[in-house]
């Protein structure tokens, strides 16, 4: 099917077209740039919410219950659930859907599972591509679920308008998510499985970490933090995702956060995302050029040899190579 027809059907909320478009952008299939160009004007309406936390924190169950809350309020929900790809085989077991299958027959919920696929940073563009498709197709809320173990997954969550960090007592290393650099991206903190022992400790640790990163208290002075952060104190909410207890409050907090961001704050978030995405795409193109163009590969080899023989320094060599790639890119248009 032609890309344009798929796009117009997806904009009319056709499930199969939405699904196929996600595949096209995820796989970078023929015509994916065209898909972006066509759908992008229709995006920006959904409230994009990132949900991340360590394995075993009950993220999928939590996302399932959030979707339930939004549906009860009459809002449609897209979910992008990202699971790690096996570095050995390149395959992946995508098990998040297991806990969300109750929504399978609800046309107002669209769930898509994705593997991280070991892409060199390309994960964020694949994920945000899926988010854009769902946004353009008119889903009111898009939830991105990622495993909060690696920096890259956390960065994906940070592409969202609102980021939920889930923590759970009794996982051994209670502060594994609350590491420097990760704490800052949380807009709403959730302590799930609140009936477990050790829950107070987790709450106290989050509070302490928040105090450290609060305005003025931030180790780096907080000068380059978002303006919104200076007034938004992230709430810490306790839930039992299994029974759904407390999830409604999290949904309310997300709405409050969006309202707090207002026009300017949201713009700032999206600007940040746009910057990151653009840089990502640029670097991907450079990588692709290096991989796919024989002349570039040859030149890279030649320069490497020259560097090794001390005939040229690495920086000058890199600039030469960069110029070669750029000239070809612009010649191709």
């Amino acid at each position, binding site marked *: 099917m032609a890309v344009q027809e798929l796009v117009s059907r997806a904009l009319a909320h056709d499930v199969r077209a939405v699904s196929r478009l996600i595949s096209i952008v995820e796989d970078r299939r023929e015509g994916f740039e065209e898909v972006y160009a066509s759908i992008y004007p229709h995006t920006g309406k959904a409230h994009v919410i990132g949900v991340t936390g360590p394995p*075993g924190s009950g993220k999928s*169950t939590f996302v399932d219950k959030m979707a339930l809350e939004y549906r009860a309020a009459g809002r449609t929900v897209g979910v992008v659930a990202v699971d790690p790809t096996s570095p050995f085989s390149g395959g992946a077991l995508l*098990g998040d859907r*297991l*806990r969300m299958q109750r929504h399978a027959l609800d046309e107002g919920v669209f769930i898509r599972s994705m593997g991280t696929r070991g892409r060199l940073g390309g994960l964020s563009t694949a994920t945000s591509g899926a988010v854009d498709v769902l946004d353009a197709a008119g889903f009111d809320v898009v939830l991105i679920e990622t495993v909060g173990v690696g920096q890259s997954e956390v960065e994906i969550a940070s592409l969202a308008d609102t980021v939920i960090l889930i923590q759970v007592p009794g996982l051994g290393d209670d502060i594994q998510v609350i590491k420097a650099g990760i704490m800052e991206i949380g807009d709403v903190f959730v302590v799930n499985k609140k009936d477990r022992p050790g829950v107070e400790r987790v709450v106290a640790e989050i509070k302490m970490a928040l105090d450290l990163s609060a305005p003025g208290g931030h180790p780096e002075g907080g000068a380059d933090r978002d303006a919104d952060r200076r007034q938004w104190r992230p709430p810490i909410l306790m839930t039992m995702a*299994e029974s759904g207890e407390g999830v409604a409050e999290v949904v309310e907090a997300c709405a409050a956060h969006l309202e707090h961001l207002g026009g300017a704050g949201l713009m700032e978030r999206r600007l940040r995302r746009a910057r990151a995405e653009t840089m990502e795409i640029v670097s991907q193109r450079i990588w692709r050029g290096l991989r796919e163009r024989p002349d570039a590969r040859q030149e890279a080899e030649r320069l490497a040899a020259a560097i090794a023989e001390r005939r040229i320094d690495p920086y000058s060599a890199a600039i030469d190579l960069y110029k070669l790639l750029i000239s070809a890119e612009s010649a191709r248009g």
Partner: protein
Amino acid sequence: MDQENLKAGYDRWKSGPYTKAKTRFAERMERFEGSSGMEIEPLYTPLDTEHLDYLNDLGFPGEYPYTRGVQPTMYRGKLWTMRQYAGFATAEESNARYKYLLEQGQTGLSVAFDLPTQIGYDSDHELALGEVGKVGVAIDSLADMEILFDGIPLDKVSTSMTINAPAAVLLAMYIAVAEKQGVSADKLNGTIQNDILKEYAARGTYIFPPKPSMRLITNIFEYCSANVPKWNTISISGYHIREAGATAVQEVAFTLADGIAYVEAAIAAGLDVDDFGPRLSFFFNSHNELLEEVAKFRAARRLWARIMKERFGAKDPKSLQLRFHTQTAGSTLTAQQPDNNIVRVTLQALAAVLGGTQSLHTNSRDEALALPSQDSVRIALRTQQIIGYESGVADTIDPLAGCYYIEALTDKIEKAAMDYIKRIDEMGGAPAAIERGFIQKEIEDSAYRYQMEIEEKRRIIVGLNEFTIAEEPPKGLLKVDPAVGELQKSKLAKLRASRDTARVEATVAALGEAARGDANLMPLILDAVRAYATLGEICGVLRGVFGEYKPGGAR
């Protein structure tokens, strides 16, 4: 014998003649191991059992720690109960099969229910479509149960029912049928499986979340200890854990960990360990690796006795005895050259008998293909009879005891299982370990390893990956008439039209009300059953109050 001389002799043999022979002719495998990955030595000697203290670690039959068996005379008094799991299609057809089996010399009944029954749906529920009467008999109400046991005196047989999530309802139906036969509940003998934890971990036929499920179980414990004292209120099952892929050690460990959780739940509900302890029973699998299996049964028995005595302070000797039913391993049967399965089942049944089982189901040769035919069921039963009456293994108690390998392995399995139980305790017990997916993951890993061993021919399965032949598709397989679903539906419609609706509604509503509180639900379930409320209606009202379990657990 002088241990030092023995040690010197062993070392001389191992580094001398053994190593020399091994260097000249390599052994069949670099490393020999059992199902649990524990290395098997070329030879076992008294050195491997010298740390054992006979009285403390083995003891005498019928005495603590019951390593040698739970009864003083074992099979010299009476052979194990030969109990073939059966049931399919309608109550009428299953009733005919039970009568046939009893005529053939079977000594106990074992009821298989279809999946809608096991999950608490009536035969006319939309999810029951295509499933009615397939893997067992369809029971929708007391009316079906009356037909199922028609002409079978319930004070004379012992009946085992493989039912878990709705166990309370089926037990209530059984009690109600007995009432109609004029048999009082205190005369009833039998078992309900009633083991919900392994459903979450391995078998998948759960209904309610863990908390209300555990409540139903302790309600049954309490009700039966007062009213149905001879009934085995739970059959804590390793069978399905093993079928799902676990090793022998995992089977023992996860089953006993589940057992610990039930005991803790009952004690927390205010029961005394010796009130329900004697009614706990177990259900194990028996695989092909004969010696490992024998050791497994013995290890399980000793470990449970120690747990009940040391951890829970049980005093009644009956609380300390691990009594178990065994079924041969369905997952070992091959669809290829199915007659070979008769031999596998023989080995497995022999292991169960040498391991001291209280009752036994032997699988039929065609179970990897379809439901067992009558001929196959008869051969399976004959296998038990040949072991019991012809082989002589039942004539002395625990005949493999003292075998260096068996004793060393019994000890190793007990220790390895205890290590697992400690890890599970650290996670907060079996329910917590299941919730976080630990037990499922361990089982899945073992299942995958086993499959890969077969595919890479590191494990030979005769007729499957070696010694194969070209075969014609088998004939004469049992098929359940697809009309069973319709038939069951029409019976149900008739029942709904003819019963006292007001009484049904009142009893079901009362049950729902009680479920919200903390009363024992058994009497209320019995009232609803007697009023001919259906299984689906009873489970439905409980679903409304308790909610339904959704599988979680990280993978």
